[in-house]
């Protein structure tokens, strides 16, 4: 066995086994309401093995539920990027704009999704746009801040090239400022996607919409605890997948 297979396959499997053992012991000895790994699998296998079935609004295969959540996240995330990217560029480019809005950004940034959601419901009166609104508001800050930092850390050498050539404002932006900032922007996009996915659970719990988060909350209320674990595992898996995909995109942008 080579060191590489040991590190990449055997050790992670050992780690997973350790977690399962601790989990089994917990359900056995300390928290009797916590379903054991085996029982969790028994009660969830249909959701995993037939991941697209639909019996009712809240009783659906796990991938179908995840798909609903992903669509919702995609909407909120798209909105976050559409607002966050230009906002970040403005903050980075204009001292005046920065002075006027940076304090507000710093003020809004740490607000939890749980605080935004009721406000979204008040504004939109419907759960779906309120959820999208919350995702966008919470997820956009890494994009805003990374973009602004990226713009401000453009090498003076590149800017000097543009100044010597007397490039127009538009050319300066498209030929120098945007391409030079792109690696930072994509770091922001990756972090924003992680946040958007983090927020989805809270948004669905509070609005009771179908999706992984909504399912989780409903199953808690119906006392089907094994499905909470199923949901948690699904959220983790999808989140990891999204991060890896975005990491690939980011690496491509940065390789230039």
């Amino acid at each position, binding site marked *: 066995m080579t060191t590489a297979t040991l590190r990449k396959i055997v050790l992670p499997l050992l780690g997973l086994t350790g977690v399962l053992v601790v989990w089994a012991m917990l359900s056995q000895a300390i928290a009797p309401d916590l379903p054991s790994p085996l029982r969790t699998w028994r009660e969830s296998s249909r959701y995993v093995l037939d991941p697209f079935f639909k019996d009712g609004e809240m009783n659906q295969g796990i991938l179908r539920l995840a798909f609903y959540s992903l669509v919702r996240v995609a909407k909120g995330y798209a909105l976050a990027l559409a607002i966050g990217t230009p906002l970040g560029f403005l903050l980075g480019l204009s001292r005046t704009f920065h002075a006027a809005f940076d304090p507000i950004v710093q003020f809004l940034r740490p607000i939890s999704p749980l605080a935004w959601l009721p406000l979204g419901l008040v504004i939109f009166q419907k759960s779906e746009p309120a959820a999208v609104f919350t995702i966008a508001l919470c997820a956009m800050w890494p994009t805003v801040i990374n973009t602004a930092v990226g713009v401000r850390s453009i090498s003076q*050498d*590149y800017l*000097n*090239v543009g*100044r*010597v*050539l*007397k*490039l127009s404002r538009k050319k300066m932006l498209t*030929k*120098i400022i945007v*391409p*030079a900032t*792109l690696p930072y922007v994509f770091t922001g996009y990756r972090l924003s996607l992680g946040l958007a996915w983090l927020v989805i659970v809270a948004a669905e719990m509070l609005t009771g919409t179908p999706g992984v988060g909504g399912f989780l909350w409903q199953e808690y209320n119906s006392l089907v605890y094994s499905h909470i674990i199923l949901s948690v595992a699904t959220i983790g898996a999808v989140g990891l997948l999204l991060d890896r995909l975005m990491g690939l995109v980011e690496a491509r942008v940065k390789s*230039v």
Partner: protein
Amino acid sequence: MPYLEVRALAKSYATPSRTTNVLDGVNLALDEREFVAIVGYSGSGKTTLVSLIAGLITPDAGEIVLDGAPVRGPGPERGIVFQQYSLLPWMTVYENVALAVDAVSPGRSATERKRLTQEFIALVNLTPATWKRPSQLSGGMRQRVAVARGLAMRPKVLLMDEPFSAVDALTRANLQDELLRIWNEHRSTVVLITNDVDEAILMSDRIYPMTPGPGAVLGPAIEVGLPRPRQRRHMSLEPAYQKARQAIVEFLRASRRAGV
């Protein structure tokens, strides 16, 4: 009246703790199609002088006049080859050069601009690398792209800030020969900043030594009496070469002693 004239140029940099006087009354005059070098120790303020002539920074006192017009801010008529290449890494060689061609010839057709861009790339022998990005090129090749871009601005005066200091000695000699060949064909007005006395003598018509800072000034110009085209191999045996070299080295040594 000289083509490019720098009069009593002064520049200081202020930090909260103290003010550093970099240039204190620099005078310089160039005729059209003249190749002038400025030689000095590292850190004496040569890059500050180039940045001032390029208009990238503003002087505290003094003025710069090019072709009868005072210099206000940067512009492509004072083309510059930066010390650290400053190629845009997200663009190919072609795009880097085309950026300069397009900036100075808005009236020309797309076909003509394309032809010009390819011409400037060919001029520095980089046609095979046209579609490569700077990260795929060696240091010497990158600097040739920077030279092509500087020439593509079709400047009234080309400013070169220690253009070959970042490449190894063998590559440097090749680049010098190449620049000399290009200059012989085009005879543009050039200000070359360097810390290499031999490079200055090989390339230029006249050399201004710069005193070490703070408060650097230029010494009296030393004429390089060597005929053109010049050959690196025979140069060091010429009495004119030895005379110029001795004059520069002596001035730099004396000014350093006086400074310390």
